């Protein structure tokens, strides 16, 4: 139990009459990279948004390190060490790259007025600079986020999430729209974050090249239901998975 940083029990989400997620379970082990995959519209993002507390599940329970967070407001999750990125990029567009990451570091500036009013709280700036360095964004430090190219915007979201110093990093399609070269870099970065810094990562992803390369464990959703779970190798060869992705015909090609 204790080695599961995140545990989701019996999660069901209904929008109106539509059941987007149906009695879904997942356990994410501490210090691993866990991927949640599935075809478009399978309910991955809905699940993801429940875990990051942006949607309220209809029923079910979400445990973080054993503590029930099912009813926590989304803004508290950051303080509990849960960081997330967004599928369709939610950057602070008009703000500079530096400011974007600084906002990520907010939870660490403490709650005092002095800290609130201080432009450069001690220690935080160094950490931010470090993250910029690490994601290769230092040259764009003073550029507005919306003026970055897509790949850099993705990296910026990641850097911003890392500024929270998360225990659990929730990534919503981090590789979508990236070039191969960029995906390789992301691969290295995520592996490094998990293996060297022990950050647990749960990612929703379509780019299988990345999923298969870095995940310790993969859970497959289709039509709101879990259809498979296992190592990348197991999942890749699971007929129901192949069918879900390529369709019946190609599965047998």
């Amino acid at each position, binding site marked *: 139990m204790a080695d599961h940083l995140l545990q989701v029990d019996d999660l069901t989400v209904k929008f109106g009459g539509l059941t987007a997620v149906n009695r879904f379970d997942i356990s994410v082990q501490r210090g691993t990279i866990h991927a949640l995959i599935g075809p478009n519209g399978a309910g991955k993002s809905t699940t993801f948004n429940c875990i*990051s507390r*942006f949607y309220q599940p209809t029923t079910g329970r979400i445990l973080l390190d054993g503590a029930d967070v099912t009813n926590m*407001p*989304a*803004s*508290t*999750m*950051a*303080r509990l060490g849960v*960081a*997330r990125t*967004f599928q369709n990029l*939610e*950057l*602070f*567009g*008009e*703000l*500079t790259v*530096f*400011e974007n990451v*600084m*906002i*990520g570091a*907010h*939870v660490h*500036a403490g709650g005092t007025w002095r*800290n*609130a*009013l*201080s*432009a450069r*709280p001690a220690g935080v700036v160094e950490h931010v600079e470090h993250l910029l360095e690490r994601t290769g964004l230092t040259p764009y*430090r*003073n550029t*507005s986020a919306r003026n970055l190219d897509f790949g850099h915007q993705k990296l910026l979201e990641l850097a*911003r*999430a890392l500024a*929270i110093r998360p225990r659990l990093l929730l990534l919503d399609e981090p590789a979508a729209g990236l070039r191969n070269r960029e995906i390789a870099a992301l691969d290295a970065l995520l592996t490094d974050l998990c293996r060297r810094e022990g950050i647990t990562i749960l990612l929703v992803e379509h780019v299988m090249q990345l999923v298969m390369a870095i995940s310790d464990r993969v859970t497959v959703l289709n039509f709101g239901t879990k259809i498979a779970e296992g190592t990348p190798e197991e999942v890749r060869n699971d007929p129901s998975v192949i069918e879900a992705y390529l369709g019946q015909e190609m599965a047998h090609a």
Partner: protein
Amino acid sequence: MRDKTAAVLPRSEADLPGLSARSSVPLGRVALLALAVATLALLPFAVTGYVLYIANLLLVFVVLCLGLHLVIGESGQFALAHAAFYGIGIYTSGLAGNAFGWPFPLSMLLAGLVAGAVGVVIGAVALRMRDIYLALATFAFGEAMQWVFLNWDQVTGGPNGLRISPARLGAFEILSDRQAYPVVVVMTVLMLLLTILISRSRLGRSFRAVRESEVAAMAMGIPVRRAKITAFGLSAFFAGVAGSMFATFSTYIHPDSLGFQTTILVLTMIVVGGLGSIAGAVGGAIVFGLISEFLRQTPSYQEIIYGLILIGFMMYAPRGLFAFIRDKVGGGTRG
């Protein structure tokens, strides 16, 4: 509103004079700042009390604009009750002086705090709404407050207006615009510094984060609702202080000048100056205030000219005066 206001806002930090994160501060900017300081310092020696009255009024509007900038420019909340908080500030400090003979620094603080407190309460209710509904709710509150000013005779003097006794500090009494000017300037500079401080701080960043993307702000651990209410309250605090500044050199207040027109005037100033930048708020107040005063000399056409200026700005300089000048003069040197 489908188009987010955010999309019109210029880069904020780099726009503050002298605040650019780059180490080399442009010389032109230093010169401009020096010129501004020199003008403010030397003005009383050069001009008549009339000009100082205008200067005082403009500076009050600068502080009003800074306040509205905090809530609209920084945190992207369309609040339209600024005149009401301004009025609360004027009446509070006026009454503190009239009835209790408080020294003016104290009544200024009180004015800001009372306005800020009302702002927090109203904000807590109004900020459940967004966009047009927030704008309309605050508009309605502003109108209701003007009615209160007009009908709460015992406190505000109602339609007779309120005579404000001279601001005092010990034996010293402010009896002219010349005497009030240093106080007004110091307060303006203080409020400007406070704005810059807020804007550069964690607090300001959280405002802008909320403005740019509420969901991302939430994901970053920013309590969005509290941030909005704080911005709203601060904005009201600024308006209250602006009101108390007005009370140092003005001897009279009437509810007529505390209506929606005033709110719209302040909004126009920050939009014309350039929404989202402190320089825009300050510049908009001064430029637009001066335009308004100059227009007084051309009575018959002034409404038409005023309207045409607004339309012209929105058609050809939509990002405000400063962005316009920068584009025309700078020739797109920014990357």
